[in-house]
């Protein structure tokens, strides 16, 4: 035990409950109808609507940031160093004369891409391993799961720091750490759903038809796993943002002069009394996106797993 009941979804599903078997009607519907219904369901509750809006805004910043930012990410205007927010510099400037607003805007791409790619790759690996492990079972399953138990028997931040300590702090290390830490978690979730559908008739039928293993895993079993997987991916993504920001703040993640928000907070700390804006705007950006993505993940969970 230990890892199932978990604070702030640092591992496994958020409530420590095993993912329920999918009962959602969304599986049967196809194409755009599904997407529209899904978004409508998210917008129907204020909390998840707010989360979705926040996420879309930040996604927009991440995609089009370079067109929106008035200054370059490391453009130093020595004459303007340490200025409070004004019409020229909306969020003020830091001690090196860099425009805080531009850096916050450009940092959105930094954090969303790192957390997004890390989560996506981990979900890909985790799904493949979880499907295979759950379906094949036996020794293969046993050995993999014991290795994962070992990895997850410590708090995730501890594991992340341990890995970063050996890999050395850099952007690619952070990406690698997210993948190593999340792959076991995702594959456990996928595996538990596979175990619950493995004995169903349609899978037996496909096997008797003589379908090969990849077909069985990805065409027959995967659709049943998708709702639980989507929920888990959303939770992972929200915690990945949290992790990237925290590692940046600790100085063991992304390195200067990157506009990573956690790193910006770290760099601005020493001058917080003279220019608080250089620290509080990036900190606020972290707070808003983390809460937004949390609300969104909560909403996705409500729509996919709890709707009948």
């Amino acid at each position, binding site marked *: 035990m230990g890892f199932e009941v978990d604070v702030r979804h640092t591992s496994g599903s958020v409530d420590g409950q095993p993912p329920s078997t999918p009962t959602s009607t969304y599986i049967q519907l196809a194409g755009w109808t599904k997407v529209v219904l899904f978004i409508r369901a998210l917008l129907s509750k204020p909390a998840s609507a707010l989360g979705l809006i926040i996420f879309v805004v930040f996604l927009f910043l991440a995609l089009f940031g370079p067109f929106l930012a008035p200054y370059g990410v490391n453009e130093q205007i020595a004459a303007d160093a340490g200025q409070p927010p004004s019409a020229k510099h909306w969020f003020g400037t830091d001690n090196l004369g860099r425009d805080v607003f531009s850096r916050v805007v450009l940092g959105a791409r930094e954090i969303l891409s790192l957390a997004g790619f890390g989560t996506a790759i981990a979900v890909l690996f985790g799904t493949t391993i979880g499907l295979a492990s759950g379906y094949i079972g036996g020794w293969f399953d046993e050995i993999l799961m014991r290795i994962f138990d070992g990895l997850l028997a*410590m*708090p995730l931040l501890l594991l992340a720091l341990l890995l970063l300590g050996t890999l050395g702090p850099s952007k690619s290390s952070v990406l690698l750490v997210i993948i190593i830490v999340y792959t076991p978690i995702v594959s456990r979730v996928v595996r538990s759903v596979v175990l619950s559908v493995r004995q169903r008739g349609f899978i037996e039928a496909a096997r008797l038809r003589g379908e090969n293993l990849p077909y069985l895993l990805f065409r027959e079993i995967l659709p049943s796993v998708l709702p639980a997987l989507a929920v888990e991916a959303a939770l992972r993504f929200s915690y990945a943002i949290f992790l990237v920001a925290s590692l940046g703040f600790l100085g063991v993640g992304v390195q200067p002069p990157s506009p990573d928000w956690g790193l910006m907070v770290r760099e601005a700390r020493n001058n917080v009394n003279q220019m608080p804006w250089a620290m509080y705007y990036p900190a606020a950006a972290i707070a808003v996106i983390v809460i937004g993505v949390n609300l969104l993940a909560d909403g996705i969970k409500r729509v996919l797993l709890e709707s009948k």
Partner: protein
Amino acid sequence: MVKYLLRRFGFLILTLLITSMVIFAATQLLPGDVARVILGREAGEAALQALREELGLNDPVPVQYGRWLVNFVRGDWGKSYSTKSEIRPLVIGRLRNSLMLAVVILVISVPVAIFLGVVAGLNENKWIDNVVSIASLAVVGLPEFVTGLVLIQIFAFRLRWFPANSSIRPTTSFLEALPMLILPALTATLVLLAYIARLTRAGVIEELKQQYVRTADLKGLPYRVVIFKHVLRNALIPTITVIAISMGWLISGLIVIENVFNYPGLGRLMVFAIDRRDLPLLQAVTMVAVLGFALSNLLADILYAILDPRIRLG
């Protein structure tokens, strides 16, 4: 009960063994040569070879792991690469500081969290429940360093009630340190509070629906007795385990919080070890943290078994 405890203890040892392998394996990922990291670029081949021999780096990895584990259990944690001093006294001193902070955190957060959770649960969907629920949802998502910096701004810079910097000395006594512990503890409390309160609320709501509660109510027992003797006794069982298990969060949270407040605990030592690429120190700190985590999980299980006979007998 004895049998249950023995089984649980065996499981603890097994977990620790696997985790120690993970810790050792992770530190083997280091690209390059440890001897060169220690001696620097200019070191001659002879000196490198001598150091490799001294550190046992020429042996096969399983042999190295075995030696490291045996030494660790015997209390020989080796020397730090960066400070060249013995690791154990350093880590133990920092552990004391982290534990001091953890105690203050639990003493503040647990009673308040249970109180808020019970109040919210008993008033499900009334305004007080909504306030507690929304506030805890907002706080629980915030990274600790954001919360901590906001508290510093308010209580240290504006109000000047507490210091912003908590860098205590090894000789500082608990009472002397207490004012410096308040802000870091408050930061951790905000998150822990939200988490424990949410679970307590869920437990209370769940129990209120049970048949025996209705029976107790219908046979005319006073509301107070129904709540305290029936509902809370059962509703708080999961909460107690959650508190023990939230040590896992506390360890992660402390790493960040100690760095926000410059508090010399294990978390700061760990970041120091990473900065200096000090692998033996990193291994030792991680082992101690994992040991603490595993022991608190064991404690949770024992408490659970004491409170709920179905677990130990089932």
